[in-house]
């Protein structure tokens, strides 16, 4: 698993993928947080709400892009056959790729700590920021990224066409992130709207963003990630059916 993980990481950094993902993420988020209308200065409070509001949407796009090749390309070029006939279980291959993707998300988020530091210093008095909520939001972003990466891997395992994988991943992430929230507003679900909302990532992300690490939220994040990783593994094994 470690060998696969290292290979993927090396792949990200020896091609331009890693740099482009990190730079594009920082530029978009930087512009939204500091420059565009409704930025942090205008909000009047020392917080990073704008960063945490936009990041999930930007990450959908970027994570779909970094995971779209992971299996589709290996299938297309035939290297998956080499990988599978090495002494690795299918799940080890999936996990290696998953952790590599997660590390890339982590590295993209890391520089935004500078934003946190800036706002911390700008507070009046200095340090007048809800530190708990900020850390909670970072945790939430990482977990959200974890689900996105597993969805991306699953989409990539479904096809040998990278563009199809990208669109599929984009679509599934979007559904998981926001669609359940929107659906819960539909009148059909009036009695069970809370449960419908609970299925989506957003409700748990909002909950963890308040700075409260609720085990129910953690359980949701972990089980959703594992579900999609398991689906990916099952898809890989489907060659045996």
């Amino acid at each position, binding site marked *: 698993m470690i060998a696969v993980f290292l290979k993927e990481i090396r792949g990200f950094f020896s091609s331009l993928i890693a740099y482009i993902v990190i730079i594009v993420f920082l530029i978009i988020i930087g512009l939204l947080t500091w420059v565009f209308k409704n930025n942090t200065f205008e909000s009047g409070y020392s917080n990073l709400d704008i960063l945490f509001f936009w990041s999930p949407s930007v990450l959908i796009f970027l994570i779909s892009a970094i995971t779209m090749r992971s299996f589709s390309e290996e299938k297309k070029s*035939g*290297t998956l056959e080499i990988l599978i006939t*090495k002494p690795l279980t299918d799940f080890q291959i999936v996990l290696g790729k998953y952790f590599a993707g997660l590390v890339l998300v982590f590295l993209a988020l890391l520089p935004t700590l500078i934003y946190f530091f800036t706002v911390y210093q700008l507070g009046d008095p200095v340090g007048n920021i809800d530190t708990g909520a900020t850390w909670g939001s970072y945790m939430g972003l990482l977990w959200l990224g974890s689900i996105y990466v597993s969805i991306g891997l699953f989409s990539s395992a479904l096809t040998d066409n990278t563009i199809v994988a990208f669109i599929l991943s984009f679509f599934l992430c979007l559904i998981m992130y926001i669609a359940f929230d929107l659906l819960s507003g539909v009148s059909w679900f009036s009695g069970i709207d809370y449960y419908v909302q609970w299925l989506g990532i957003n409700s748990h992300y909002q909950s963890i963003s308040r700075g409260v690490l609720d085990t129910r939220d953690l359980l949701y994040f972990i089980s959703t990630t594992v579900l999609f990783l398991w689906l990916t593994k099952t898809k890989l094994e489907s*060659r045996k059916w």
Partner: protein
Amino acid sequence: MESVKVINLKKIFGEQIAVNSINFTIGEGEIVGFLGPNGAGKSTTMKMLTGFLPPSAGESWVTGFNVEKNPLEVKRNIGYLPEHNPLYLDVYVKEYLLFCAGIFKLDKKEERVKNIIDRVGLTPEYKKKIGQLSKGYRQRVGLAQALIHDPKVLVLDEPTSGLDPNQIVEIRNVIKEFGKDKTVILSTHIMQEVQALCDKVIIINKGVIVANDNVQNLQNTSKTKTIIVVQLSKEIELNIFRAVQGVLQAKRIAANKYELECTSDIREQLFFAVAPTGSAIINMQLEQQSLEEIFKILTNPNLKV
């Protein structure tokens, strides 16, 4: 001891039976040629042996481990070069081999990689990206990848297809070199390859094994008659040949050149029969039935000798 054993192995893709209940065993250290026309089921059989595809029925063992039940052990003992030699083109040769060594958790990785690069003849190219290499060198990378963990069994699916004649010879030499202490199964549809490399040959057609023997035996047994080509200094009467016992048919194929169908190798008798006529024998040749013809006969039921 047998290192590969296959019992009633069968693979069905939808309606099509790709491999139909084949059985064979391969002894330790043997080099076996897997011969057959395209689509005969060679690759499918190899994919089942290496654990990439599960069989529809039947079982196989590699170095004593059951492929279905102990896939990881089997994969540790097999070096596999798939058809078309898939590679990561944007990765450096050395990096790729280090990755493969890492999967097997080998110690002294650097040293091993260096060693294998040297042995497959990649030294002049090992600093390049795989995508920059010529086909022959890519094939060496594929072989290096299959050999890095020093496997007991080597499975090579058409290792020389698409290479130029020089490269073919070079790759064959690498296979020969490594095949000394390994069991090698290599598939091909080139007859000379089997003759040049293999001890044994398994001919497969439409998913069924039509021959499984060593190369020498196959050449001898399937031969129904002996052909002797005689070249003389002067023309002689065909009847002189026909009078020799054992000659079934005689025919003149060119000036001073005769082709004789005989029951066995009777070159000595022919010499004494021709000598009194005053015509000297310049050349006398026993025609070996080539593997190519055997292959044609075995894989084409409409063709009879």
